[in-house]
């Protein structure tokens, strides 16, 4: 019997990070890599569609990002690993690898009950009980799913945490 699943190529995933301005705070610019693992991912799409997150460009080069970074309140563009959805034990290694391949400054945001604690699948034998068992989480956004506005509130919380020294 064959065992173990083939891991998905994470390189393609990581290069999918996109830069956004947060409409509620135009000086806040983040690069978001959305790991949309379940229904919560729709709310991230809603946030973009509703204009709460404004995409800066399809993809930014390092130089262009630096220019954007100068105009931000932090002086840097933080890369957010947004874990929105259920982390099955089978998929957990891919999330871990995505996190390890992101460059600093970076922060992990756990979006929704599944990523926070396992949520509705808290008793399932195949689900990781919270992504914080694998990677350090900066902000936990509650909801099942959280509203798009809650995503913005969570990002603002990440901003407040980043201390420029």
């Amino acid at each position: 019997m064959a065992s173990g699943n083939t891991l998905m190529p994470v390189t393609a995933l990581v290069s999918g990070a996109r830069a956004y301005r947060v409409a509620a705070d135009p000086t806040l610019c983040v690069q978001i890599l959305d790991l949309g693992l379940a229904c919560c991912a729709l709310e991230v799409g809603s946030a973009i569609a509703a204009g709460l997150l404004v995409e800066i460009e399809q993809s930014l080069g390092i130089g262009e990002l630096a220019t954007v970074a100068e105009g931000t309140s932090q002086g840097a563009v933080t890369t957010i690993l947004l874990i929105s959805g259920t982390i099955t034990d089978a998929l957990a290694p891919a999330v871990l690898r995505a996190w390890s391949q992101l460059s600093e400054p970076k922060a992990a945001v756990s979006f929704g009950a599944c990523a926070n604690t396992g949520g509705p699948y808290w008793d399932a034998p195949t689900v990781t009980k919270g992504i914080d068992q694998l990677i350090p989480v900066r902000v936990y956004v509650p909801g099942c799913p959280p509203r798009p506005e809650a995503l913005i509130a969570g990002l603002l919380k990440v901003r407040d945490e980043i201390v420029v020294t």
Partner: protein
Amino acid sequence: MKTDGQVPGQAHGVIALTASACTSCMICVRECPSWCIELESHDVEVTDPGARRPRTVSFLDAFTIDFGLCMYCGICVDLCPFDALAWRPDFDYASRSAAGLVQGIGELESWQQGPGDGTAISDS
């Protein structure tokens, strides 16, 4: 689509508690599929003026909802026989720790005064 950052008043943002309405019947605690409500209470004897015998009243010591675990199904809100639980539209309670999503009587009651319009969801 709404773009003003305002959420509808009847949105399922958070569950608020009216502690004075809660009789500690434990229905919500037992029916919650996520096992994310915890409640502690003790009985006190109250003697009403003119009453022959004292009556027993439950006093709510602690009531917590773990919003990290809650699946926002609304079973607790629907089943509470005393309307002690209600949906409120608040969404801004993200936390820096998973434990920070566990909310006690104080927070749960504070949402009762939130900006919701208090209307029930209808199809019209």
